[in-house]
């Protein structure tokens, strides 16, 4: 324990506050993340940085000293970990342990530290913290060397594109400040770093507890010539400089129209720089114009750079709204609607391939579908594993299709235009973070083939309006029975129909699918596509599928022409369906012989506003069929 005084105000503050303020208005900012567990001394290190940079006040210090004696693990000495932990209390209160942000400043820089404690949900939290960090401090316990978790932390850091990595070999005091120990760990780490593509890192031997090589070079490590941790954090080049060197891009957040004479496009510049007179292109539309003014509250600017929030005026009245990207005219970003991506799943509910999610990238929000993952990555071994879905904290590579073209850049080039989140359309939860690798050629090369005989021709030939009667309900509700009667009656009326039955489809088209949530989604997606083709052919399609999830029924509704999707809820209470148990399935499910059975151990989400609701406890199958036909053909 070095005897640092509790608080050492800089002389300048007392002597010349104006000079101090002037100096401190020119500080830059660095955001970093600390990776390591409590055992590695992470909290102690952060506590030490706060303490040594004078961010701790007397009352906090007094509380800390009291807590250290009561709870601390360091005897009479101050336990810095207590400054930032407070985890026990959080656990008791049932509060999710996730990313905490801490702040300190030196004479040169302001620092924001993302601190991600805990082992559970580590991936989600670390990815969140890393997404805004310029630098990562990876802590290693000198007594333990490079561990599985070191590899995991390094991989995630690299995945999120952090260019500056500090390997802090901690607890050097406990290995006698032995250079050989330090050199051995650095060599091990270098071999691993090379293997995953981390080009460069800075290794520093430290003791968070004793304070070695934190603020200044330590006399205990005369063999170490590099910078101490804090001086390194103060001098490392910030990524912003790099962003400025890239072509100009600004996602449009908001269009400002205070009066008829002013139309400005507000946004935060993601990269590059801009001057009035520069030619710009608006994506995805591709229209071009020239910047006339860079408007701010503090007056028009002669130049704006990456990181600034500004409002731009253009010379032409071109179409440009929230979600579009204003870019350098001669170096615009790409536009596409199919991508290969890395996904980090962040929700308790697993990925359902085929289900549409909202995708938000920059200021654009579009509907997107994730295809089956190509593989999942084991973040401890970095092996690729086959995967049908991704669950909480899983990382995988999957293709994504968006419902319209978006402007993007590969994540490696731009966090702002290559990083996205997926949002569940029902719960509105942020379920995944993603990073775009590249656009798939397919989306550029496969075009829609226009045919001469249109869907209107097909329908006119059959003298009918195409429709999908979508019967949904529990197993044994009576869907197939009613569907069959409906089709017979329509046939008698000379209507051209086709009945798609859940069980029958699973014998052929969908025989590769099981009954997990993910497979149920894919089952419905395929049936939806088939039904869509049939309506294009002019048919009245009747389907009988449990289709338990609202989101999938909504997805199919979106596939169809407006008004052609008719949701029919065959509403039979669970107790009644189970009493009938025509196929004996409920009995099996109750006995545990059938897994994922809707109503028993898999949910059924009843329609909130179906076009037709049939209460089978009040109505016979014949009457139900008549009611449906009356609705279809009044």
């Amino acid at each position, binding site marked *: 324990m070095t005897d640092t005084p509790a608080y050492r105000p800089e002389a300048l*503050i*007392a002597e010349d*506050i104006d000079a101090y*303020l002037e100096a401190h*208005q020119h*500080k*830059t*900012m660095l955001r970093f993340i600390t990776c390591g567990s409590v055992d590695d001394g992470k909290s102690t290190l952060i506590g030490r940085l706060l303490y040594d940079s004078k961010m701790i*006040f*007397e*009352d*906090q210090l007094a509380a800390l000293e009291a807590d250290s004696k009561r709870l601390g693990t360091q005897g009479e000495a101050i336990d810095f970990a207590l400054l*930032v932990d*407070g985890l026990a209390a959080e656990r008791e*209160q*049932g*509060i999710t342990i*996730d*990313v905490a*942000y*801490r*702040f300190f*400043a030196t004479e040169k820089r*302001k620092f924001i530290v993302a*601190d991600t404690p805990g082992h559970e949900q580590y991936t989600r*939290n670390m990815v*969140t913290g890393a*997404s805004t960090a310029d630098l990562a401090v990876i802590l290693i316990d000198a007594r333990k060397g490079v561990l599985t978790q070191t590899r995991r932390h390094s991989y995630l850091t690299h995945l999120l594109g952090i260019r500056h990595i500090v390997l802090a070999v901690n607890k050097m005091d406990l290995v006698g400040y032995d250079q050989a120990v330090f050199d051995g760990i650095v060599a091990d780490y270098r071999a691993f770093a090379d293997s995953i593509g981390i080009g460069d890192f800075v290794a520093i031997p430290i003791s968070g507890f004793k304070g070695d090589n934190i603020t200044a070079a330590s006399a205990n490590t005369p063999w170490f010539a590099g910078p101490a941790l804090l001086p390194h954090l103060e001098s490392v080049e*910030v990524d*912003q*400089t790099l962003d*400025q*060197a890239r072509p100009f891009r600004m996602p449009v*957040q*908001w269009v*400002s*129209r205070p009066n008829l004479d*002013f139309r*400005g496009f*507000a946004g*935060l510049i993601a990269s590059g*720089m801009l001057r009035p007179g520069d030619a710009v292109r608006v994506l995805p539309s591709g229209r071009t114009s020239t910047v006339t003014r860079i*408007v*701010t*509250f503090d007056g028009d600017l002669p*130049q704006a*750079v990456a*990181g*600034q*929030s500004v*409002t731009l005026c253009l010379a032409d009245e071109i179409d440009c709204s929230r979600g579009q990207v204003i870019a350098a005219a001669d170096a615009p970003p790409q536009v596409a609607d199919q991508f290969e991506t890395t996904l980090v799943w962040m929700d308790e509910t697993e990925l359902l391939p085929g289900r549409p999610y909202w995708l*938000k990238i920059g*200021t654009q929000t579009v509907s997107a579908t994730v295809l089956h993952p190509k593989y999942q990555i084991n973040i401890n071994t970095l092996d690729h594993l086959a995967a049908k879905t991704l669950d909480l904290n899983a990382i995988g590579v999957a293709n994504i299709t968006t419902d319209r073209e978006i402007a993007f850049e590969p994540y490696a080039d731009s*966090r*702002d235009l290559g*990083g996205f*989140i997926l*949002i569940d359309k029902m719960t*509105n939860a*942020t379920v995944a973070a993603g990073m775009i690798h590249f656009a798939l050629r397919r989306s550029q090369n496969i075009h829609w083939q226009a045919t001469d005989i249109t869907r209107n021709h097909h329908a006119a030939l059959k003298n009918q309006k195409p429709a999908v009667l979508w019967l949904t309900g529990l197993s044994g509700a009576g869907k197939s029975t009613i569907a069959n009667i409906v089709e017979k009656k329509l046939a008698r009326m000379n209507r051209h129909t086709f009945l798609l039955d859940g069980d029958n489809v699973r014998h052929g088209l969908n025989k590769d699918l099981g009954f997990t949530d993910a497979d149920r989604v894919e089952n419905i997606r395929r049936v939806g596509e088939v039904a869509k083709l049939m309506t294009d052919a002019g048919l009245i399609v009747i389907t009988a599928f449990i289709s338990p999830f609202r989101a999938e029924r909504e997805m199919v509704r979106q596939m169809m022409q407006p008004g052609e999707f008719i949701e029919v809820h065959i509403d039979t209470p669970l107790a009644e369906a189970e009493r009938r148990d025509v196929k004996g399935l409920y009995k099996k499910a109750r006995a545990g012989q059938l897994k994922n059975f809707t109503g028993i151990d898999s949910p059924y989400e009843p329609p909130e506003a179906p076009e037709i609701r049939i209460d089978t406890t009040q109505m016979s199958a014949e009457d139900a069929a008549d009611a449906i036909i009356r609705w279809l053909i009044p």
Partner: protein
Amino acid sequence: MTEPLTHLRRLEAESIHILREVVAEAERPVMLYSVGKDSAVMLHLAKKAFFPAPPPFPLLHVDTTWKFRDMYALRDRAAAAAGMELIVYHNPEAMERGINPFDHGGLHTDLWKTEGLKQALDKYGFDAAFGGARRDEEKSRAKERIFSFRTATHRWDPKQQRPELWRLYNARKAKGESIRVFPLSNWTELDIWQYIHLEGIEIVPLYFSAPRPTVERDGLILMVDDDRFRLRPGEVPQVRPVRFRTLGCYPLTGAVESTATTLPEVIQEMLLTTTSERQGRAIDHDQAASMEKKKQEGYF
């Protein structure tokens, strides 16, 4: 190549980005305005974010009737200068029952502020409310999201908070749900002061030292701001040179003795001082995890 942006310019750009995202995605946003220095900075940033238009949302002051007189004066002036509508809300129940900090202790904050805020948000149907809270204020705020979700009954459910990556904020919500948004999350107290200095933002004179009538009570120096202040037997107001580091209801807000009459002097004192900011607020001393608990109940 130009110089990298300073930390204050980056914080400013980030806050402006947050303000604009909310206006673009929420249906009916509002800015909670408490007249303190953080509110002053937040309002200033809103003016910048939407210039040349005025900020496209109203200011809401959930009032307790017990603020300092200087605060009311600045409030009305600042709203008018920004060209914004000012909504002042008083919880009618608290009004009727005459709830005050002398007789009612914790109930005072609960009814006027916590309940008052919920009532005001419901009454006007606001679905997004900006607040000036910062993560450095307290340990429990360190992990608070910038977009904080509240259920239809205004409860803060720790399990429903969303991860915030990059500059992407998910502002989607179901009908009845609302969000509290904290554009100053990443600012520290020193950043706020430096920015006020740099930008010349007007703040309540109470932040500067002046001779004021005060009494010392339970370890706090309290200002006798009007004749509703109930003196205890033997208490005689004394004029002391004091200023305030944080502002709230005047009978609950402790002053510090000070000679700092200019902004640089205030910053100097803040940097040389040895106690943390919130110590002057009686509300925090109630119980250890008081802020966490208040947040779950719907306090900002």
